[in-house]
Structures are given as structure tokens and as C-alpha cells.
């Protein structure tokens, strides 16, 4: 990659002293990208876009919001009613949180399916899990800010999780609260952290992208690039593909923002927080439901909390649980099946999390929880040993094996996928 020649003398002058343009040219223009990425690879850039949207709308909302238990609820309503375009910005922010999680969850499952966490991308993956954790903390604290019933009781329940810690649990909880209950001090610190953490996420995203660009994107075949014929420059091919994906995403997002802004929320959050009355049926936002189900599946308070955090923590060690040398599920016949079982399991957990903890729901929740952990701790290590992967293509350019070896069964799918 020779240094690019810039025509504009000002650009040249600056670039000679601070090579930002060379950097951008290298990382965004000529950056060699596998030519067979399918649309599942759109979700990373979409998530990045959503992060910017959330920060921009959040900064605007912060200009109107009042972090005080007596005024928070009304100040949010004032934003919706009286502030110019306040309703729009508030609904974008509120629904944006949900859609940010949709994008990131799809992005994660894409990584799971195509083995994007495997060497040499383990740190890339771990940084992604860190981003997920930061997002969860940010989303949780943001949900508290409107100070509705669900805000308040969500905050109470989640902070009480820490009381499960032996010996110091109670002290940690009152430290988190800054008082005897969730109150003004809690609201203020959550506001402070809710404003801070997104910028921490930006920092980790930068590292995530640096790690990505070190070895380049994985691809649907999960094999290394064999040469120039396997890659295409990021611009214009993937810039335009990302833009098209963005247009499609924004259309769906706007349908929710403009025509069903409360669909993903809970009506109880339109009731101001009342510390003396708990709503009959507390549920977290949908994106926490699977973890909520795992928490409730275990009858012991401490173990439930441990299991819930372990459900995310297991992702940190995933690269070492799955030892199969083959990345893409396309060439792993059994893994492909258990991948979809895991997707189904997460959906079941999400559904269970939304239901009251009674009757059959408890048993299904427990089975689904056991399966979730079995997937990572039992099935994946066993598959690494016993699964016989299909033969891999030699290169992206020639997805079908040369030299007369048998092509992968159903390999037509791979060929079609490549053009997708």
C-alpha cells in the first residue's frame, strides 16, 4: 500500500504533518475486504451508526432533562410535549436503545455462526463482549432516568442483585444507592454514568475496529484470504452496501419511531415512580429478558445472580471452549444445528423472562437455562473433538474444491451466498 497521492494541496500539506488522510484512505478506502461478505456483515457498521445516533440524541435530551426525583418524570414529558422536535428526539433515543440491541445481538450471532471469535480474532471478540456489557449498563441506567414506575422498580430490583454477594452485599447496595433506597442520589449518579459510559463505549469500539483491521474481516467461508483475487477494496463496494443496509434499517426503525413508539416499552413507565407501590408484573426491557429468565431459573439468590452474569461471561472464554479449527458453520454440519438450537433457546429464554415465574414457565426456564450453559460448556468442547467438518474450499475465489475432490454437499448454497 503505497502512500496515496492527494491532489488538493491543503490536504497534502496537512497529511504531510498529520497523516489523517493517508490513514482514512488506508482504513476506509483501499482496506482489502473479503469479496464474499453477505448481508449479515452489515450489522457491525449499523451498530456503530446507532451508537452515534444515541450519543447525538442523548446530548440533546440532556439539555432539557432534569435529574431530580421531583422533576425527572415531568421534564421528560415536557420534552415530549413542549420542546421543539423533543418528541422525535426522545422517541428516537427510546426506541434507539432497543434497535441498538437488535443490531448488536444479530452481530453477535453472526459472529457465532461464522466462527468470527476464533484465532486470530479472540481479542476482537472479547472487546465486543466488553462493548455488550457496557451497553447493558448504559441501557439499564438510561431506563431509570424517566423515573416512571418501571424505571424505579427496575432500578430497585437490579441493584438488589448485588445484595446476593456474601458479607458485603448490603453495604454494596447502599453504596450503589447512596441512601436507604433508590432515591435522588441514585438518579443523579445514574444520570452521570449514563452520560459517561457511551463515550467509554466509543473508546472500546475504536479498539474493536483496530483489532478488526489488524487481520481483516472473517467471511462466510471462514477461510483466510489467499491473495488479491479474494479481496475487494472496502470503498466503494462495502461503503455502498453498508449505505443500502442503513437505508433499509432506517426505514424499519422509523416505522417504529413514528408509528409505534411505545410498542417496545412498557405502559407502566407512563406512571410516575411511586416508592410505595410495586406494579403487579415487573419485567425488564425486552433485551434483558433472556438474562432475567436465567436469574429466575435458579432458586438460590446468589447462584441466580452468578448464573446471570456467567451467561455473558462465558462469551469471554468462548474462543477457548470451541477448539474446532473450522470457523464457518457452513462446513460444520453438527455445529450448524446446535447454533440454531442456541438461537431458539435464547428466544425461549426471552419468552420465559416475559412471563410470570409460575407453573410450567419455571420448568421450561430451567431446561432452557441448562441448555444454554450446556451449549458452551459441554456441546462445543465435545464437537471440537467429535465433529467431522466438511472439506474446506481452497480459496474464496474458487469456493468449489479444485482437483476433482468432492464438492461440499449442498455447496450450491455457498456459491449463491458468495454473490449475496
Amino acid at each position: 500500500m503505497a502512500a496515496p497521492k492527494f491532489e488538493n494541496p491543503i490536504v497534502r500539506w496537512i497529511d504531510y504533518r498529520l497523516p489523517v488522510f493517508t490513514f482514512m484512505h488506508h482504513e476506509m478506502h483501499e482496506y482489502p475486504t473479503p469479496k464474499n461478505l453477505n448481508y449479515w456483515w452489515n450489522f457491525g457498521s449499523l451498530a456503530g451508526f446507532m451508537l452515534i445516533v444515541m450519543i447525538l440524541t442523548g446530548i440533546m435530551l440532556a439539555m432539557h432533562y432534569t435529574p431530580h426525583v421531583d422533576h425527572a418524570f415531568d421534564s421528560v414529558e415536557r420534552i415530549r410535549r413542549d420542546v421543539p422536535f423533543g418528541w422525535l428526539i426522545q422517541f428516537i433515543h427510546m426506541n434507539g436503545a432497543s434497535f441498538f440491541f437488535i443490531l448488536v445481538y444479530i452481530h453477535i450471532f453472526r459472529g457465532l455462526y461464522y466462527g468470527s471469535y476464533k484465532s486470530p480474532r479472540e481479542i476482537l471478540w472479547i472487546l465486543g463482549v466488553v462493548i455488550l456489557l457496557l451497553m447493558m449498563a448504559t441501557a439499564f441506567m438510561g431506563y431509570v432516568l424517566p423515573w416512571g414506575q418501571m424505571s424505579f422498580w427496575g432500578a430497585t430490583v437490579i441493584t438488589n442483585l448485588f445484595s446476593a454477594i456474601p458479607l458485603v452485599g448490603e453495604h454494596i447496595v447502599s453504596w450503589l444507592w447512596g441512601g436507604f433506597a433508590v432515591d435522588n442520589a441514585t438518579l443523579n449518579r445514574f444520570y452521570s454514568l449514563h452520560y459517561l459510559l457511551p463515550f467509554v463505549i466509543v473508546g472500546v469500539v475504536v479498539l474493536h475496529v483496530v483489532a478488526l483491521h489488524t487481520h481483516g474481516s472473517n467471511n462466510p467461508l471462514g477461510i483466510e484470504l489467499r491473495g488479491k483475487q479474494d479481496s475487494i477494496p472496502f470503498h466503494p463496494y462495502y461503503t455502498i452496501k453498508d449505505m443500502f443496509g442503513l437505508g433499509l434499517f432506517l426505514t424499519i426503525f422509523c416505522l417504529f419511531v413514528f408509528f409505534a413508539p411505545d410498542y417496545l416499552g412498557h405502559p407502566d413507565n407512563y406512571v410516575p415512580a411511586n416508592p410505595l407501590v410495586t406494579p403487579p408484573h415487573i419485567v425488564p426491557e425486552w433485551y434483558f429478558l433472556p438474562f432475567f429468565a436465567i436469574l429466575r431459573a435458579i432458586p438460590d439468590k446468589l447462584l441466580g445472580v452468578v448464573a446471570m452474569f456467567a451467561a455473558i461471561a462465558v462469551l469471554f472464554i468462548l474462543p477457548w471452549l470451541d477448539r474446532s479449527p473450522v470457523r464457518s458453520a457452513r462446513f460444520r454440519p453438527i455445529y450448524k444445528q446446535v447454533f440454531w438450537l442456541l438461537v431458539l433457546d435464547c428466544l425461549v429464554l426471552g419468552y420465559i423472562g416475559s412471563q410470570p415465574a409460575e407453573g410450567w414457565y419455571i420448568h421450561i426456564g430451567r431446561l432452557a437455562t441448562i441448555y444454554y450453559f450446556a451449549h458452551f460448556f459441554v456441546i462445543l468442547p465435545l464437537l471440537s473433538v467429535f465433529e467431522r467438518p466438511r472439506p474446506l474450499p481452497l480459496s474464496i475465489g474458487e469456493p468449489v474444491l479444485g482437483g476433482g475432490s468432492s464438492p461440499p454437499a449442498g455447496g450450491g448454497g455457498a456459491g449463491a451466498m458468495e454473490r449475496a
Partner: protein
Amino acid sequence: MAATADGAGGDGVTRRDFLEYAAGGMGAVGAAAAGWALIDNMNPAADVLALSTTEVDLEAIEPGQSITVVWQKKPVFVRRRTEAEIRDAEDTPLDSLPDPMADTDRVQKAEWLILVGVCTHLGCIPLGQKDTDEKGEYGGWFCPCHGSHYDTSGRIRKGPAPENLPVPPYRFLDDTRILIG
């Protein structure tokens, strides 16, 4: 890079150019519209605008007395002037004023002087509303920050302030009520 992408032949290039300009133009319009929503978001909200007028009941104000009302978060001086004060203001020769303006152009009814009570120098509130206040050398108002003297028409007479105290837009709803703003 562009060379490989553009190499589709003459017809393809024009079609692609068109698509690029159309999509790029629409994208720019969309981004600008979204940007406008963010900018407009910082303008005064409906509840603030609803307070942009202030109604004042004049009935209880005696001649020689002043009251201060709040209009758009700023103090407004409402003064019922005495005959002597009116005469002072009207008889002042215009060429002795730093910011010449006739008293008759500053009031709707000579008895009632309505002023935004913010010194035109650097935004302090001049003294002179209370009987006990220093009213300055010209019997109107005196700004303690940097010593500006205003007369009984609220005109600057001495000191660093460049302009007279401004007269807010107002109208008489009836003989005893005015609407400021």
C-alpha cells in the same frame, strides 16, 4: 480503485453517475433535515413561549410610584410619573442627549413609562425603583455597576451606557391594564 469500479463502459458510467448524485443529494438533504431537528430542538420550548407576554394591572400604582414586573425573565420598570417628572422629560433638549429620542416617542400615555430595566452597558439592573434608592443626577435611574445615569424618560444622560433603556412592545388592554410583549 475507482478505475476498476468505473470500467463498465460508457452507458454504465452515466447511469452510475446519476445514481450517485441522486442518492448523494437525497442523503445530504436527509442529513440536513435531521440536523435541523437537532438545532431547532434548542430553541425556546412551547411552555417558555407561553410566558412571553406579561399582563400588568396598573390600578394600584400611585403617581410617583414604580413597580417591577417580570417579562421574558427580565425586569420591566412600570412607572407612574408625576407631572414634574413628565415636564422634566419633555423639556430636555434633544441635543443634550447621547442617544437622542423625544419623550413622546417613548411613551403611549405620558403618565406611564414602561422600560426594560436592564442597563444597556453590561446588563446590570439600575437602581431607582424604590423610594430609598439612589436615582442618579437626573432623577430617573442609576446603575451602580459602572455609574450610568438615566433620566425620568429612561434616557442615558451620563456614564458608559451607550443607549437609552429600551421600551418593550406593549399595548393598553384598557385604561388600567397593559400587555407587555
